[in-house]
């Protein structure tokens, strides 16, 4: 108790020095809180935009479909999936899709295409499909004999709205599937690669075309909060409880994108190391100075029976008090800063494009780790660098420290 008192009151002795120490801890905390909130916010923003555009946050497939896609690896009972996803809280929307390759032609132009059967209503709800139509209109129904082409593909075929496109593929029963569809719209997803091959059909029409009635290859799911993806993906998996299905979070089905994001995020840790150094240098200097200055006091304390461990406690408690104060103050300031940048964001004068997605503004994110990690950084780095001066104080030789010359 009395050690606590000494430690606490020591804080107020060298006000300027204390202020300097406090500022380095406070500044370190705010920097770290801002960087983490900012990094998490912008990265999650990019990931969210990227995945929401087409992929979704979670996908469901037949077990082996992702490794080796095939027309025959289908999800056969959508009603169970619909019911399950309905029940899971945090799920925002989902949409079923059918995929296969085909050959499309118009007049003398022919191109290899990826046929995508999509549910017009659900696709629009999940990935804002209709917003990406730059010419023409959306599907009139799930069974209409209509096609929407990616922009690049339309250019290759020199196709315009109202043209009639012939498409050939292989149906699930082994027969040749071929049909003529009226081009009603052209879409631009932001991803040129996709747009050069995308041949969208309404889901039911596509199922009929490929003789896969009632079946789909993929269900893309979006959730409300990207940070919940691991948890919700597990819940869906458990609830479906079907070994023939696989449920994957975006980290798995968009692996290369995930690795790229992860590599970018490593930069944040380098920043944190810099902050640790700021705190460590600021603290070490001042703690060492006060210990040297108070050597006689530690000598008196030792002479009258204070144990070395108790002297260590006095030094460490003082810096801990100060660190806790700085953490509380820093948390308040950090919250204000992060709240501001979460709601206002920072609009970019030169929008950046990532994977075909244009990003116009970056926003911070407010999460627990943007406070937890800085608190840990401040506490541990301050405590760690104070250990050396504390040991020095504990080893004070009373006889020497009080000698007069």
């Amino acid at each position: 108790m009395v050690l606590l008192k000494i430690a606490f009151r020591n804080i107020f002795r060298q006000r300027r020095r204390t202020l300097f120490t406090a500022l380095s801890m406070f500044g370190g905390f705010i920097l770290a809180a801002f960087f983490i909130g900012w990094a998490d916010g912008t990265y999650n923003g990019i990931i969210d935009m990227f995945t929401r555009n087409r992929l979704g946050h979670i996908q469901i497939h037949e077990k082996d479909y992702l490794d080796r896609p095939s027309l025959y690896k289908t999800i056969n009972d959508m009603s169970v999936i619909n019911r399950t996803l309905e029940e899971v809280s945090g799920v925002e929307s989902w949409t079923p899709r059918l995929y296969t390759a085909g050959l499309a032609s118009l007049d003398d132009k022919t191109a290899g295409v990826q046929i995508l059967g999509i549910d017009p209503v659900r696709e629009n709800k999940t990935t804002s499909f209709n917003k990406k139509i730059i010419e023409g209109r959306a599907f009139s129904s799930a069974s209409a004999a209509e096609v929407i082409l990616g922009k690049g593909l339309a250019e290759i075929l020199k196709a315009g709205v109202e043209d009639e496109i012939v498409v050939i593929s292989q149906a699930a029963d082994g027969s040749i599937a071929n049909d003529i569809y009226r081009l009603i719209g052209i879409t631009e997803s932001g991803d040129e690669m996709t747009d050069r091959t995308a041949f969208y059909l309404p889901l039911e029409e596509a199922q009929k075309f490929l003789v896969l009635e009632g079946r789909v290859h993929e269900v893309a799911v979006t959730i409300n909060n990207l940070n919940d993806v691991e948890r919700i993906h597990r819940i869906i998996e458990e609830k479906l409880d079907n070994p023939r299905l696989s449920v994957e979070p975006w980290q798995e089905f968009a692996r290369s994108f995930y690795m790229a994001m992860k590599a970018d995020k490593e930069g944040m840790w380098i920043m944190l190391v810099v902050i640790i150094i700021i705190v460590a240098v600021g603290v070490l200097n001042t703690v060492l100075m006060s210990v040297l200055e108070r050597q006689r006091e530690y000598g008196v304390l030792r002479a009258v029976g204070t144990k070395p461990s108790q002297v260590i406690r006095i030094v460490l408690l003082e810096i801990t008090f100060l660190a806790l104060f700085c953490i509380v103050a820093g948390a308040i300031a950090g919250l204000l800063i992060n709240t501001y940048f979460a709601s206002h964001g920072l609009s970019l004068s030169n929008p950046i494009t990532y994977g075909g997605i244009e990003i116009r503004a970056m926003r911070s994110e407010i999460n627990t780790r943007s406070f937890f990690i800085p608190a840990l950084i401040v506490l541990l780095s301050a405590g760690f660098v104070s250990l050396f001066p504390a040991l020095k104080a504990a080893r004070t030789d009373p006889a020497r420290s009080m000698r007069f010359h």
Partner: protein
Amino acid sequence: MEEMNVRKIKDYIVYTEGLEKTYKDNGLEVKAVRGIDLRLKSGEFTAVVGPSGSGKTTLLNIISGLDTATRGEVWLKGRLLSKMKKRELADFRRDNIGFIFQAYNLIPVLRVEENVEYIMLLQGVNKLERHKRVLEILDEVGLQGMGNRLPPKLSGGQQQRVAIARAMVSRPALILADEPTANLDSKTGGALLDMMKELNRKTGMTFLFSTHDNIVVERARRVITLQDGKILKDEVKER
């Protein structure tokens, strides 16, 4: 013979035999203490005098166990210090010796009563008892009503009174005071010494001073003169 020796040692509160201390300073050997046999009986009020550098502080530090002798032994209350473990020695010192230094005696952030109470806190004395004893001793050293002050706000003489109170409050057998009047004017120093002498008379605690101040010498009952680390004279005053 051996047994007789032990009996003899037990009769003294401080008993040293052949104390020597050699400091090594940049390869240069400094013999601070060269063969001191010092014996103090309980209740003494004794001053070690001698010019600066004669070894007074070194001697006191060795007696208290704050420093170790190069040769020779110290017994306090019949116990051989060199046989004690570090921790044991620290506790023994805390419980049996009160220190008064020339200056910088007090913890500046602790109030007067907290400074006085400190050792009792380490000893685990209960609150009621602590409070009672702090009030008593502050009264005795003439600091009644000053318990709430912080040391830097006090005069040098008042600070030394607090130091005396702290040294005496847990009733140690021995008080070691290294030049306690060096930073005080003669009037203040004299008053302080009179007060300590009175406390010595009342409590029977043993006082050992180091000093080259006449104020102390005049009041000491026994004066041991050091020169170059050796005892030159050892006089007990009449009366």
